[in-house]
């Protein structure tokens, strides 16, 4: 996966232009060291911006960008490595990665210059608020942010319930439906939303992954000018990055499954004599994980392939990472028995992480509905 671009500055001590192996080694050192130690606290609510900064320094948060060789496979592998220690941090990496993707693909000089360099280096942080519009585009729910044209841009109002990896001084990619006369939405705009000009409202408690800095986001007459515009109209842009957006998520599920596999192996010597009677044994999970990872890495070579068949392949792989994470986490707890059931245990935490992988947009049910829609023949209305 090394590209010419990666070779160019391969001797840099840090950053996303290093060799793949160097980046992955750096991520593994963080994952197996400080991240594994912090995983329980992150699950309880500690937002690991320091560790995200270290991951950025290791080069893990920009490898997928065109300017760093468009190494999507590497970005996914880095996310997997972190997620095997902490699913919440893997999710934060995805949020950060896709936000960088929006900024770069916007082609907007105000977003692709120093702002993106800071983002990739972990000097600033931002996430994504596309859960609602992605579901809106699939006809699952109405779009929640509304924009009205204003001199020099738009004014946006509305409330998004759950947006992650945001906070004071941070930002996220967001989409609003443009309403002109009446209630009709003419098109959508995508923009970089600055949290300092929005109201962050606390969310109810989730069953886990509380350290993802997830807030309700309320906008009241929020002005969007050209410097923050990612795409106007937004739909063609989303169509272009959609497969990449979904494919990147696979790193989370693969990592949760890999972490679960490790927990099964850890007790094989002592409990193998009884664990042999369980379903989804380590060999089986390991085989499926290797196959699925291979497919994901193959798909990661052409993230901007616009064919419908490619998109279905991506959705199928993403659905499968959810399925595998669920089964692996479940089996891992059963393999560990009572010690896995302790509130502080990693297998217990991974059960909840795997549930998150399966319900975060796009959830398994959304993926299936979309695959069914894409498989239907289009006919005259």
């Amino acid at each position, binding site marked *: 996966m090394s590209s010419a671009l990666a070779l160019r500055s391969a001797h840099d001590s840090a950053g996303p232009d290093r060799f793949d192996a160097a980046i992955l080694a750096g991520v593994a050192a963080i994952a197996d060291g400080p991240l594994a130690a912090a995983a329980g606290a992150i699950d309880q609510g500690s937002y690991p911006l320091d560790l995200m900064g270290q991951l950025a320094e290791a080069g893990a948060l920009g490898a997928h960008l065109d300017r760093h060789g468009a190494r999507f496979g590497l970005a996914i592998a880095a996310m997997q490595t972190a997620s095997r220690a902490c699913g919440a941090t893997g999710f934060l990496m995805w949020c950060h990665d896709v936000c960088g993707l929006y900024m770069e693909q916007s082609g907007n000089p105000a977003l692709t210059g120093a702002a993106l360099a800071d983002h990739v280096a972990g000097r600033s942080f931002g996430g994504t608020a596309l859960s609602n519009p992605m579901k809106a585009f699939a006809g699952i729910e109405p779009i929640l942010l509304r924009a009205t044209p204003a001199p020099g841009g738009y004014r946006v109002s509305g409330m*998004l319930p759950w947006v992650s990896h945001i906070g004071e001084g941070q930002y996220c990619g967001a989409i609003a439906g443009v309403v002109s006369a009446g209630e009709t939405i003419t098109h959508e705009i995508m923009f970089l939303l600055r949290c300092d000009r929005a109201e962050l409202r606390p969310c109810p408690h989730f069953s886990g992954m509380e350290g993802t800095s997830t807030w309700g986001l309320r906008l009241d007459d929020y002005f969007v000018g050209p410097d923050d515009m990612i795409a106007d109209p937004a739909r063609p842009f989303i169509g272009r990055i959609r497969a990449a957006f979904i494919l990147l998520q696979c790193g989370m599920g693969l990592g949760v499954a890999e972490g679960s596999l490790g927990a099964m192996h850890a007790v094989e010597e002592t409990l193998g004599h009884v664990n042999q009677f369980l379903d989804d044994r380590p060999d089986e999970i390991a085989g499926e994980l290797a196959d699925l990872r291979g497919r994901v890495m193959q798909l990661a070579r052409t993230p901007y392939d616009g064919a419908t068949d490619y998109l279905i392949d991506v959705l199928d792989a993403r659905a*499968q990472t959810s399925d595998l994470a669920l089964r692996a986490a479940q089996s891992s707890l059963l393999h560990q028995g009572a010690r896995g059931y302790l509130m502080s245990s990693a297998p217990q935490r991974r059960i909840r992480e795997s549930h998150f992988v399966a319900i975060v947009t796009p959830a398994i049910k959304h993926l299936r509905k979309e695959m069914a829609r894409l498989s239907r023949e289009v006919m005259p209305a």
Partner: protein
Amino acid sequence: MSASEPTDGLGPWRQFLCRACGLIYDEAEGDADSGIAPGTRFADIPDDWVCPVCGVTKTDFEPYRRRAPAALTEVAPVPPRRRGVVIVGAGIGGWSVAEAIRSWDADIPITVVTSCAGDIYHKPELSVALGRGLSPEKLLRETGGAAAARLGLRLMADTVAVGLAPERRRLRTTRGILPYTHLVLAHGARPALPPGLDPALCWRVNDFTAWAALHAELARGPRRVAVVGAGMVGCELAEDLARAGHGVTLIGAAGLPLPELLPEAAGRRLLAALEGLGIAYRGQTLVRGLTRAPGGDVALALDDGSSLAAQTVIAATGLATPSRLVQAAGLAFDRGIAVDPQTLRTSRADIFALGDCISLGGQPCRFIEPVARQAEVIAYGILGRPHEGYAHSAPVIRLKTRSLPIEWHGLPAPGLAWDVVEESGDRLAMVQRRAGEVVSRLVA
């Protein structure tokens, strides 16, 4: 706690749906957590009230109307614990395999996965039904649900097979993952549209659902219809439409219809017969693009620069076997799913295929006649019963144009000369010979 029936004269208690998280505010129940008493009208809730689950504001709620429950009656929610045979496709191929298995084994679990409803109809009738005044109800022989009950199998309707893991014997579908002992692929082929033909502007008639929708459009009264493609399906549909009273233009790439199968003398007869029904033939013409014209017509841009307007456009431009599922699973594919010509096994011994989706020696064979024999071979193979094997022979092909029915014995060889063996006013017989041996014969 909930309030009793309202007395404020504003009608029954109403419900409001949070558009963000799906919470329902019920006026009868109120919202105890926020101190909103039971019996509080939504309009009377303070404007700073927020959704107790997700925190969005009052303006993000909308009146809640109960949706009709999704029709799930034919989808069993739980996969069987016992593995068994999984059949993908509920056309004639899929149902034939199920029937053949059941005639020998009443117990083996069978699951049929189909992207349609699984209703049973006779496909060749689709290209002659309009002229006979047949309705969708008349064409439907048995509903999928009834057939599933009769055969004691599980039908997963409106379910798409999206992924296949042959080494783990698991089929991924849009309604869950199915383990199997044997898999039968009978998903058929799909209409192949040339670039330029917008699928939203032209019909393709390759299954009952599409035909029924087209039937509904044509039932509004006589229409100007353009049929793009003058192969077998195009010629049959053109005649059928003309007989049903529609004004038909048939557009073909060659000077005469059916150029792959008919020598010139026979092609002229067919053309004359079609023209005798009032069909206008536009030969040596390709359609470059379709656009919706003001007023509702579809404008067909032709490659000679001219254009044609039609109220309904039907494309009959051939079929292609979808390859994504099987190729991603590593099964051999060569213009169709490659199968062993005797056993109809794919490159994986526990996966069989039949019907329109297969190819034998790189040749698809999209005719109905061999399907029953193929199904029997597969059923025997699955049940481990001895069978002498499938023997493929070119089926007799019939063009169901009543104005000039044509029959072929032996598939015509491209480029080989045709000799007239009989010719009169109402009958033409021709043969192709290779080294003196007749390889193909047609009677028109």
